[in-house]
């Protein structure tokens, strides 16, 4: 095996490997990476079961941002969710941030329901109107109690 084509083939192999790595890292996992320009807001929820970092934020079914971080506030026993909203997307002061699920067992995501006020939230402000995640157990138990109540 001439020395040259050993190095050639190894070089090709390494390039292929690195190309796959970059595709994986950038395009697949990269969505959370590439910070589109925009501003971040926070919202407090009593329960966000299943919501994950990098989850999608939708407005009228359209993707308008993603969840950048999730923290737990021990004093108020609430979850603080940091939302990254794409530039140019208005979020009114009385807009509602609700945790929803895609399909029956699908991913949790945040849906922003627009409010009526003209004042718009800006960088670092908080959405006060929030709806926590409805877990299927609450749904079912509420139905059972209400019917025989």
């Amino acid at each position, binding site marked *: 095996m001439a*020395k040259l084509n*050993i*190095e050639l*083939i*190894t070089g*090709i*192999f*390494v390039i*292929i*490997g*690195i190309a*796959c*790595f970059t*595709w*994986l*890292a950038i*395009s*697949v*996992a*990269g*969505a*959370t*990476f590439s910070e589109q320009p925009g501003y971040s807001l926070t919202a407090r929820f009593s329960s966000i079961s299943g919501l994950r*970092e*990098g989850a*999608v934020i939708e407005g009228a079914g359209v993707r308008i941002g993603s969840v950048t971080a999730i923290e737990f506030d021990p004093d108020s026993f609430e979850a603080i969710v940091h939302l990254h909203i794409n530039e140019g997307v208005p979020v009114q002061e009385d807009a509602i941030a609700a945790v929803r699920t*895609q*399909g*029956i*067992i*699908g*991913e949790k995501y945040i849906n922003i329901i627009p409010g009526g006020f003209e004042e718009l939230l800006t960088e670092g402000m908080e959405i006060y109107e929030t709806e926590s995640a409805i877990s299927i157990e609450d749904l079912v138990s509420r139905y059972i109690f209400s019917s025989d109540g």
Partner: protein
Amino acid sequence: MIKAISNLGSYAIETIEQIGRTFNLLLIIAWKMCLPPYQIFPIIKQIYFIGARSLTVIIISGATIGMVLGLQFYNTLERFGSVGVLGSAVALSIIRELGPVMTALMVVGRAGSAICAELGIMRITEQVDALECMAIPPDKYLVAPKLIAGIVSVPLLNFVFNVVAIGGGYFVGVIMLGVGEGSYVNGMIDSVVWGDVRLGMVKSIIFGMLITLICCAKGFYLHLSQYGSQGAEGVSRATTDAVVISSVSVLFFDFLIGALMS
């Protein structure tokens, strides 16, 4: 009866000895690699043998496993009516779990056994002693390039495996079974986080080191093990041992890393 127990004892001692020698070999090489002279071409040659030559095996197995996953996940998800998640299901399970493990097992089968056999035969034909008598440290000259090549090639093969497998899943899911192309791709892109890719990478780096180290040690120290005196048959026994032990330790460490890292 006593004989059986004493055999068991000697087997246990032998195993502990082998683990000790294997770890010892890793330390020796880690130390000797920092000393000059540095040789690049032997490492490239080993990357060629371990990595480049295993490319076809990895591509074929990657494609098939991707297709199998696409099919099986489709059937299961269809019952829950959330077929849209197929992309992320296939991608996540491959990148986090199947990619590193299957790549490692493929490389053990193809390159690991070859490494162990080569070193074993070199040991019984006194080639290692010849190196020693030429003042060329055999562990540095023979084992180190293979170890480094393993650490470099297995992760690269893993990434190729992942991409091809995701492609396989896409082929079955989207083209054959009609899952929405957008939901497959976007679902995958949304659900896969850098952490997953990093986990897969860390796993395959550790697997790369593990399988090359075990296979090298099994062959290189053949003369110290009980197979040493059995000539060619000893080599073949040691090789099968090496493949079995490497595969099992890959699976064990897969769980360990998965538990520690996620």
